[in-house]
């Protein structure tokens, strides 16, 4: 498979007075061109930190301890600050969580897109700029009039689509969307995800969707990676994960989704997510795992191949 993005052994830690916190622990995966990869996990799983670390946007007290990130053959850790800056948005674009609230409230949408373009050396005359912006807005399903509007004149869904427009303006190879729809209601969520899918088809780029809604993942991504306590505990094609999840946490996550089929079937996962600075020994999931045995308490399971294109970090997979 021709991987557009390869992540190997990525480790990110935060300096905390009470000890080092390993937010991302030895995570490896690859992303094919044109593929939709999901990264699922709950709060504290490290998924957002991982997304930021791919773009080297971790600020102190966090730092990248090690690992390689390769975009289309180019090793990212070898790039200097300027090289990395040019890569952000042009090579890998990110739609961060709550980005619709980070639109500049005093600038029209067109000006914000123009800003993004100018930062990467693309200066267009007013005619060309208007045309480019109109085309971008059309791609994300917004009317051309939106270009002259301010963020507060747009609804939540429209703002989020404007953020997607900014993210694609330089035709990146990878788009990382971190919980792009968590603040939106289900109807608007579908519109935004449809936009994302269309954008991907038009651009031929790959998408990493970070989130915790398994239903959304099931309907949108091609492959899914599940994170728990900073580690990638399962990666597999989405169909496989739904029908035959290998890791107990993945199973539990799927069962905890409330269904619309029968009432009274909602299940939770007992226990609490572990504090990253105080992880249990052995497998981080063992205190909550229905299958835990003595060996789970002492041996940390490594990520192993358990099937074609499937990997899981569990002694029983």
């Amino acid at each position: 498979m021709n991987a557009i993005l390869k992540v190997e052994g990525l480790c990110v830690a935060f300096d905390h007075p009470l000890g080092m916190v390993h937010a991302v622990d030895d995570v490896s995966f690859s992303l094919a061109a044109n593929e939709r990869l999901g990264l699922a996990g709950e709060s504290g799983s490290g998924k957002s930190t991982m997304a930021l670390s791919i773009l080297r946007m971790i600020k102190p007290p966090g730092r990248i301890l090690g690992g390689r990130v390769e975009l289309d053959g180019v090793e990212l850790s070898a790039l200097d600050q300027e090289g990395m800056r040019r890569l952000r948005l042009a090579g890998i674009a990110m739609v961060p969580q709550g980005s619709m609230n980070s639109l500049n409230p005093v600038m029209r949408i067109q000006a914000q897109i123009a800003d993004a373009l100018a930062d990467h050396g693309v200066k267009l005359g007013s005619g060309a700029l208007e045309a480019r912006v109109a085309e971008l807005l059309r791609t994300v399903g917004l009317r051309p009039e939106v270009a002259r509007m301010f963020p507060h004149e747009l609804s939540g869904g429209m703002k989020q689509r404007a953020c997607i427009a900014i993210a694609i303006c330089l035709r990146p190879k990878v788009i990382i969307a971190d919980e792009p729809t968590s603040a939106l209601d289900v109807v608007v969520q579908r519109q935004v995800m449809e936009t994302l899918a269309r954008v991907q088809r038009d651009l031929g780029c790959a998408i990493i969707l970070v989130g915790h809604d398994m239903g959304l993942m099931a309907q949108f991504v091609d492959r899914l990676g599940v994170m728990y306590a900073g580690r990638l505990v399962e990666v597999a094609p989405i169909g496989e994960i739904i029908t035959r999840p290998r890791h107990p946490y993945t199973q539990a996550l799927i069962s905890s989704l409330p269904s619309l089929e029968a009432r009274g079937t909602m299940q939770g996962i007992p226990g609490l997510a572990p504090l990253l600075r105080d992880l249990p020994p052995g497998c981080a999931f063992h205190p909550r795992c229905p299958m835990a045995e003595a060996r789970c308490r002492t041996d940390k399971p490594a990520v192993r191949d358990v099937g074609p294109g499937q990997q899981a970090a569990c002694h029983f997979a």
Partner: protein
Amino acid sequence: MQAVLRYLRRNLSLVLGSGLLLFLLAFIVVGHFIVDVEDARALSARPLQPPSWRYPFGTDRQGRDLLAVMVAGTPLTLRIGFIAGILGVGIGTVLAFVAAYYRGTVDTIIRGIADIGLTVPGLLILIIIAVSIRGGLTVNQMALVVASLAWLHPTRTIRAQVLSLRERGYVEIARMSGMSGPGIIFLELMPNLLPYLAATLVNAVSTAILASIGLEVLGLGPIDAPTLGMTLYWVNFNAAMINGWWWWWTAPTVIILLVFLGLFFVTVGLDEIANPRLRRSA
């Protein structure tokens, strides 16, 4: 304890400020053992002597031992500042809470008076008040004069803080748990404002000291008290600078400088505690 020390390492302003103030305190305390404060009165020594072993700060034109003057006067100046500052912030806090919590007419009235008061130049009002008081002012009366205006600014700023805290979820929960107005003010809102109140207090003390020194330099202070400001008044009255009696104005100036620097750094330090956004990460 460990956590306190660790925090102090990060908050250098607080350490520096407290250090300066503690140094001044030590100066006053030790000074009281070294000198006889009676020598702060006129005609205690030969006048206009430059610093020597006998008189480390020299003497002034009326024959005062300047070291004794500093040792006796600094606590007086500080006292004015503290009384005025505490009174000002005390009154300001009560008015601010009442205005911000109950809103409505009460708020409009309190806010109106404070706003009008703030637009009039404070020093001018103080001068008018000081001049109208028959006979001389004592140190305590001085403090009250300054306090009369010291509550204006704290009322406004504390009110703003309370307005924002009032909307917090925990205030609503307290209301649903049967708490009444005064209960909510004292039990829910006040504790969260303590750091802010402390910073406001130090600020108010600073301002009060400055105001009192200002009045004294103009000659409107307690004539017989050897306060720092009065010393400067005599410096001007006797044209000490032109006459070259440098030791006379150096001592009070340096001490005033230390007082303000100390208070300033403490304010910055307290500000960092009160406003978490200013905190630098570990």
